[in-house]
């Protein structure tokens, strides 16, 4: 399935190159049908649903049989074929390449120039750094925070976004830490598996229980990694569409139809097609929508909304929480204390060893930051949303769905994250 998706993206890249004007819109619409086919392929969904169901099964049965809560968390560490968690480790490898070159590190620490990749090659070790970053971008450069919005700036469009993360990796790790981390996680998972199976065998019908459990663990470990792949394929295509549309937008800027090429972000697909066809645009629409968007930035979306406009955020019904603790959903086991870093913008990420990341949301692009922190707290999310899956694979204690966490926790405060019970204490 991964191969099939890759081939189909290569075909798109070939096809789209020669297209311009309204032809471009036709080919995108055509390709979206292909994307939908891949994305909602029942076979593809079945793969990760198998893993998700197995996860629920393990958590339920291990609790019932052995009194173990969230047993699937550790069993999910360092699984193969997870394109998102591999990305975090790949950026550690980029750091490994740059670490020996002090001159490059110093340059990166002060760089503000968005075209830094062109300049870096002149430094000692710069070519190596350049090549490592480009290789990373070739594989992951279509991603960025908020990537499901096609208009957001991709890492390939602004590679400087990655610099703070690379520097954090250089500072906080030694050479080869990526592989070591993966290997350690895998060993822990295998150890846990062995431990559970041994304990199960002691129970009545133990052999049978152990066999069934082993089958479920294999399902998790073989298939949960694929849970991240469909979105990767989808974001890949997004970037191909986007680059083609921006080329068209540039033409419109030259023709004096657009003031800036990014103004196309404020049109719908059909509206943009009309503009391309007629070379005419009523700018009042753009101005109005820019204003509207600024207004939206001040609003917080609710989980549930009614036709009456009522917003519902939901409440936890929890007992036995420590006083003053902030309730959340436990998605990755472990209890950790550390300094909270409240980071809303990935570019501001500058971690010290032992820090805990506190943010609004973590879509796949936030993964490279997960390797540098010891705990994770987010305002939204669930058991199977992106951040949670990756946190488990990295063995990173995590609590999600902590309402207003970025406002209630101050940057720099010491906190304790309880990823087993699902709450945060401010110390």
């Amino acid at each position, binding site marked *: 399935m991964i191969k099939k998706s890759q081939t189909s993206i290569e075909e798109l890249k070939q096809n789209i190159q020669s297209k311009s004007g309204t032809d471009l819109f036709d080919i995108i*619409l055509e390709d*979206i049908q292909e994307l*939908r086919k891949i*994305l*909602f392929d029942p076979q593809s*969904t079945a793969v*990760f*649903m198998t893993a*998700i169901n197995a996860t629920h099964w393990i958590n339920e049965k291990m609790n019932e049989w052995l009194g173990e809560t969230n047993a699937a968390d550790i069993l999910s560490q360092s699984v193969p074929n997870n394109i998102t968690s591999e990305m975090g480790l790949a950026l550690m490898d980029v750091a490994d390449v740059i670490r020996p070159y002090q001159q490059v590190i110093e340059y990166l620490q002060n760089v503000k120039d968005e075209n830094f990749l062109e300049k870096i090659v002149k430094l000692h070790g710069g070519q190596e750094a350049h090549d490592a970053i480009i290789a990373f971008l070739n594989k992951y450069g279509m991603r960025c925070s908020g990537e*499901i*919005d*096609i*208009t*957001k700036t991709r890492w390939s469009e602004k590679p400087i976004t990655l610099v703070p993360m690379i520097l954090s990796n250089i500072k906080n790790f030694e050479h080869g830490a990526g592989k070591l981390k993966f290997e350690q996680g895998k060993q822990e998972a295998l150890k846990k598996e062995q431990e559970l199976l041994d304990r199960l065998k002691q129970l009545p019908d133990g052999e049978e229980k152990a066999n069934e459990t082993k089958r479920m663990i294999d399902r998790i470990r073989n298939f949960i990694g694929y*849970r991240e792949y469909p979105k990767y394929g*989808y974001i890949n295509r*997004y970037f191909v569409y986007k680059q083609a549309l921006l080329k068209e937008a540039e033409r419109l800027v030259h023709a004096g139809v657009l003031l800036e090429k990014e103004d*196309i*972000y*404020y*049109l*719908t*697909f*059909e509206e943009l097609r009309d503009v391309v066809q007629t070379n005419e645009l009523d700018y009042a629409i753009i101005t109005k*929508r820019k204003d*509207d968007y600024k207004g*939206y930035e001040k*609003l*917080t*979306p*609710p*989980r*549930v*909304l*009614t*036709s*009456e*406009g*009522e*917003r*519902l*955020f*939901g*409440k*936890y019904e929890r007992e036995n929480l420590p006083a003053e603790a902030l309730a959340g*959903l436990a998605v990755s086991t472990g209890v950790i204390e550390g300094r909270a870093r409240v980071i809303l913008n990935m570019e501001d990420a500058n971690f010290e060893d032992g820090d805990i990341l506190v943010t609004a*949301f*973590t*879509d796949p692009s936030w993964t490279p930051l997960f390797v540098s922190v010891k705990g994770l707290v*987010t*305002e*939204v*999310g*669930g*058991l*199977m*949303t*992106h*951040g949670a899956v990756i946190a488990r694979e990295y063995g990173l204690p995590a609590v999600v*769905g902590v309402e207003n966490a970025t406002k209630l926790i101050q940057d720099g405060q010491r906190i304790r994250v309880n990823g087993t019970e699902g709450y945060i204490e401010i110390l």
Partner: protein
Amino acid sequence: MGSLVIGFEEMDKTQLGLVGGKGLNLGELSKIEGIHVPEGFCVTTVGFQKAIEQNEMYHALLNQLESLKTEDREQIGEISSKIRQILMEVTIPVDVEKEVTYYLTQFGEEHAYAVRSSATAEDLPHASFAGQQDTYLNILGVDAILHHLKKCWASLFTERAVIYRIQNAFNHSQVYLSVIVQKMVFPQASGILFTADPITSNRKVLSIDASFGLGEALVSGLVSADNYKVKEDTIVDKMIATKKLAIYGRKEGGTETRALDSEQQQSQTLSAEQILQLARLGRQIEAYFGSPQDIEWCLVDNTFYIVQSRPITTLFPIPEANDEENHVYVSVGHQQMMTDPIKPLGLAFHLLITPAPMRKAGGWLFVDVTPMLASPITRNILVNNMGQHDPLMKDALMAIIERDFIETKPVAQKAPSANINNTDVRHKSKTIQQSFLI
């Protein structure tokens, strides 16, 4: 009458630049049948310009101000103080004075008036200049009114206003001021009416804050107010506050703050009948403007007067539906771990891709789960699956279910058409859950 001074009832929408947002709003309110607005008029931005157009000192100082940045605090203080002084000493153009006097005679010279400013910017007539809108209450006599007119003009150049404009890149010379002169009322009670619940954003719930005396006590946070909530002509919630103080107008002009006796402190400000009457007025005003409104009202001798109405801009948008039925929507952003607003092209692409019934609400996408909530079987599937992944989502859905917001339609087991329908709903429900897991 010319364009220097305009009465509320003579205003039309094209005159926004002349009278400012607040002024025009009073003009619009005055036109709604059955809505009482205390009489009044605006000294327009042209009136203001006429007063300063020949004033070389003013223009020279204004030029100096244009070049300053926020950190030039000292110079800002010095220059703006000089400009304020010039404006306080400026000669009011004869035509302006004549027209002001004309209106005052019309409405009654012996009455007290409120004088307040209504700022506007050349390219941004809707820009609000929060906190810079001076209001002077209970002003008596033509001379005093003209004096406060100048005070309002000068308020354009308080240090705070100047710094605000620098921070927001407004040109000082392109910000104009209109001044509203409105007959004072001496209310037994006043307050604020939101035609939507400001906390939950529910458009069907009106929220009324009420306290005794003039509204200034409430607006300035001097007293806590009663709060009443009205839904579909029924009072659904009531919170009676302890109202220790009230501000009243004095006979000789100005206002005074008075302590209330302990019995009045605890008493409900508006009667049930008055609450419902006010709620109906609110709906009428909302219908006229076509959007939820934040309304300042006061009660004089059992008649409600409206002194201000403006759109509520902080409400969360509602997805468009093509029927009048109740709908329930579930956030896509929470499932995708991306709750930032999405730009229009981003929304468009997402809509092209998803198989789920997704709807736009401002910069966000929501899935319409109404059909799933209408069937008892799929309702359970939806709530349990969502709950397994996100208990907050489950809790929010349960809150809706518990109040029967969506009626369940029992599935007739024997009718084959119903079964097909049921399968269809199950299929849809599966589609939705899959689309969430991308």
